[in-house]
């Protein structure tokens, strides 16, 4: 989850409140963010994905002011109509754009840093690493409107990007520039997007890099902001978050006339209807009248109309333009709960009459474990993720390609498939434990997976029991005796038949049959396999399906 970092003094300035360690550590997380780090100067909070507005320092501070009861209702986000126009041509690679201008802003070091942080965080989160949206912030006075959003040929179009001293084509930027990796987003398209001004000066190559010309510095007074992307609603939201933050820093929001859209940004509050009964039903409370209204306003909403003392009444609530997460009345209910304080709710354990029922297979597996433990075996647990080397090669077997579950994006080469057998990992365990006292006796009941056309998820799960014992000397008959005792104790018939399984030694290996069906194998592990695993003492082992036993 994204993290915002604050200088504590700066946060105090933005909120007009002395922030003690206790407030920073205990009170602020009750607004819905995790504290990640705190020292004498700095504090870092993890912001939840539903509150991208809190990714900006100004937005975070704004949320705090409400939460501390210092503000209520939606602030006046008046916009001034400007004459700036943004024309558009068809840009297939990145069809959506919106824009705004901010005038008369004083960009201090801190404001500038905060702005960059907001931009970067929005790129990562709402923007899905710039794929869904990218924000460009420019010095308005270095260029001349109207601006044009258009698609150009990557190997023809040239400009000097930020952090470069020479003109580069878009293709060269992709290859050479440190931000060039973002051009990967465009690679399927023949033409790439750029924004230019009246005099064909380049402002930006979204979503990759701005031009050097429009670089924003501490001397910048007026800003032009563009947001491009693939979803109009998302880019408008991001623009609202940016402009409201800059407004909080003293800037004046000016509109830009975007061709085909009209004046932007659009900061009119959205409306949502909510039944007051629903609030109390979901929270188990009886919030009414002014108290309820205050809770709603102190989370930054406006309440439309008067509130009476009635429990059940549909009311309209206005959502501030920077809040992008309100989809359903339940989202308002949560904010009311947060305003009230999660720590202020009494807990109530209700009586819901139901009968307990355990999973029979789980119960039976526990009983099987008890029998094996009775023979002095230690239960182990291994990972489902493994690799072909361990599952097959070291066992002197060919990979079962046709039935193997393979990952599309393995963690690493050691974890690329799902296990279809349990025994190999037991040998891995023995290999890892050679320094530990002998004899070593271990077992596992493991879910093993393989492809299966019949089931909806195309996977069959088989429960398998694997047992292994190692000592300076082992005896093949000990493992047959163990199987015999195990099966007889459970009242199951079985039979043994010769096999050629190369994982075991000749004349010391067998398959286990149950009603003619092969359910497993046992024997003394072949020294070649022991060498593969670097196990230095002999091992007897068995593995069998236990589905029929369960």
């Amino acid at each position, binding site marked *: 989850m994204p993290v915002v970092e604050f200088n504590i003094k700066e946060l105090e300035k933005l909120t007009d409140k002395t922030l003690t360690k206790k407030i920073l550590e205990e009170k602020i997380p*009750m*607004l*819905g963010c*995790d504290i990640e780090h705190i020292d004498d100067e700095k504090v870092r909070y993890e912001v*939840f*994905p*539903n509150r991208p507005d809190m990714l900006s320092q100004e937005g975070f501070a704004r949320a705090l002011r409400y939460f501390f009861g210092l503000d209520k209702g939606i602030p006046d986000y008046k916009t001034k109509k400007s004459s700036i126009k943004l024309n558009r041509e068809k840009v297939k690679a990145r069809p959506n754009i919106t824009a705004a201008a901010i005038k008369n802003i004083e960009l201090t070091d801190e404001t500038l840093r905060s702005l960059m942080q907001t931009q970067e965080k929005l790129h990562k989160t709402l923007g899905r690493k710039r794929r869904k949206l990218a924000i460009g912030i420019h010095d308005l006075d270095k260029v001349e409107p109207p601006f044009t959003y258009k698609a150009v040929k990557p190997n023809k179009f040239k400009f000097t990007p930020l952090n470069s001293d020479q003109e580069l084509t878009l293709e060269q930027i992709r290859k050479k520039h440190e931000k060039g990796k973002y051009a990967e987003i465009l690679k399927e398209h023949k033409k790439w997007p750029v924004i230019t001004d009246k005099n064909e000066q380049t402002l930006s190559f979204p979503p990759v890099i701005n031009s050097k010309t429009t670089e924003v510095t501490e001397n910048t007074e007026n800003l032009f902001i563009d947001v491009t992307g693939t979803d109009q*609603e998302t880019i408008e939201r991001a623009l609202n978050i940016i402009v409201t933050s800059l407004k909080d820093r003293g800037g004046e929001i000016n509109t830009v006339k975007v061709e085909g859209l009209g004046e932007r940004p659009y900061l009119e509050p959205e409306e949502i*209807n909510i039944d007051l009964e629903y609030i109390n*039903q*979901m*929270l*188990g*409370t009886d919030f009414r009248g002014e108290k309820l209204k205050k809770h709603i306003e102190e989370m930054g909403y406006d309440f439309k109309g008067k509130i009476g003392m009635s429990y059940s009444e549909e009311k309209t609530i206005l959502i501030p333009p920077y809040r992008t997460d309100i*989809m*359903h*009345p*339940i*989202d308002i209910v949560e904010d009311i*709960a947060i305003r009230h304080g*999660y720590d202020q*709710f009494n*807990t109530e*354990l*209700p009586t*819901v009459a*139901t*009968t*307990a029922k*355990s*999973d029979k297979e*789980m119960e039976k597996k526990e009983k099987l*474990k008890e029998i094996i*433990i*009775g*023979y002095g*075996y*230690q*239960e*182990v*647990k*291994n*990972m*489902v*993720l493994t690799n072909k080397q361990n599952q097959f090669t070291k066992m002197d077997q060919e990979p079962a390609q046709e039935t193997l579950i393979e*990952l*599309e994006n*393995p*963690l690493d080469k050691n974890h690329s498939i*799902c296990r279809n057998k349990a025994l190999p990992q037991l040998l891995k365990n023995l290999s890892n*434990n050679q320094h*530990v006292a002998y004899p070593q006796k*271990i077992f596992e009941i493991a*879910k093993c*997976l393989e492809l299966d056309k019949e089931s*909806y*998820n*195309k*996977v069959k*799960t088989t429960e398998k029991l694997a047992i292994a014992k190692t000592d300076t000397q082992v005896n093949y008959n000990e493992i047959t005796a163990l199987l015999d005792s195990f099966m007889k104790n459970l009242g199951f018939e079985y039979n043994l038949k010769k096999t050629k399984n190369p994982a075991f030694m000749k004349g010391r290996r067998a398959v286990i049959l149950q009603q003619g069906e092969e359910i497993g194998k046992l024997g003394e592990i072949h020294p070649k396999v022991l060498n593969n695993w670097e196990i230095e003492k002999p091992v007897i082992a068995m593995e069998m399906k236990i589905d029929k036993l369960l």
Partner: protein
Amino acid sequence: MYKLTKEGKKYLTEKELPEKQLVKKLQEEPRSIEELKKELNNLDIAVNWGKRKGLIEIEQGKVKLLKEPSSYPEEEALKLIKEDKEKKVNSEEIQRLLERKLVKEIREDVVKKAKNQIKGKGQITHLTPELIQTELWKEAKFKEYNIKALGKKKHPGKKHILTHYVNKIRRIFLDMGFQEKTGPYVESSFWNFDALYTAQDHPVREMQDTFFTKKPEKAELPDKNTVKNVKKMHEEGYEDSKGWGYEWSEEEAKRPVLRTHTTSLTIKALKEIETPAKIFSIGRVFRNETIDYSHIPEFAQVEGIVAAEEMNFKNLLGYLEEFYNRMGFEKVRFRPGYFPYTEMSVEPEVYYEPKEEWLEMGGSGIFRPEVTRPMGIDVPVLAWGLGLERIAMLDPDVMDIRDFYCNNDLELLRNKQIKLE
């Protein structure tokens, strides 16, 4: 060598020979078998030997004394044998005692072995079956052990540490009236994400968070109606909800994943089950995380669900408090949290006495209407979940999460103390 059997010893010490007991009962008058049966335990042996020795006869169901012997030779013989004076007993008498199973013969080789063992004046290490049978141990001197010295180290066969935790938690849920559910590791994105209202471009659905399978390539979607409802909810919402507002892809929903939470099986179970319902599951889940001492790409998730009329936020907190109390954490507190499929979302924290600090202990919330509506669930659903390893990691013996799965350190597993709680 001959030794008294258990029966022989009995007749010599506590009780008399059966025929002698019988003779005593008949001194006044003949008596009926029925009566005698009640008074003598082994009347058949007594009658048999009484007859063979010509002491009694039976007439019309009555036993009559013929003569009273002056002595019983078996008594003398048993006494001599007991005192190891068997040479004074004639072989005919010994045969009779063997026949009556009052003495047993100890084979010559056994006696020889036993004698060899006690030969010389050295101390004997092992008490042997021969010494016990021949009772020659009486003449032996046994070596004394260092009573504090330990023999070869013992290792019990045990359940894995995590199994103990799993069973403890299963017990808690069952005590609270919950029903246990299980489900497959490989799940369609539909059940793992879409049914839980996680938008198809949500970061959790990216490769760096979730394992997708190359094989199988595609899973099947459930019935058309369910798919239609979920699609509609994502695209345009339903009733009071706005939805996410994007074009929902059926192909994306078919992509199989290693389940990232057990909520995939819970939501499926909820669709089938009648409410009120309380269900729980404990099962392995998978996250694309690099392995280190505190991270592992697979771990066990515990999940509890309550679906019933009129459930509310206070009830959720009530269940959380009860559950964590039963887990052994006396103090529980709540903070706001975020999950795509719950609202309100809660992060419970428990007070951990040994470290004197509050610990995050999983996540919880009430399922969003966008989750429950498409499944036809019209009651509030309370849900909470936590990683089992997080609890197990509180154990000071466990420094490294890899000890659970990757390494199976036998030293740790064997020596782990079992808390009898």
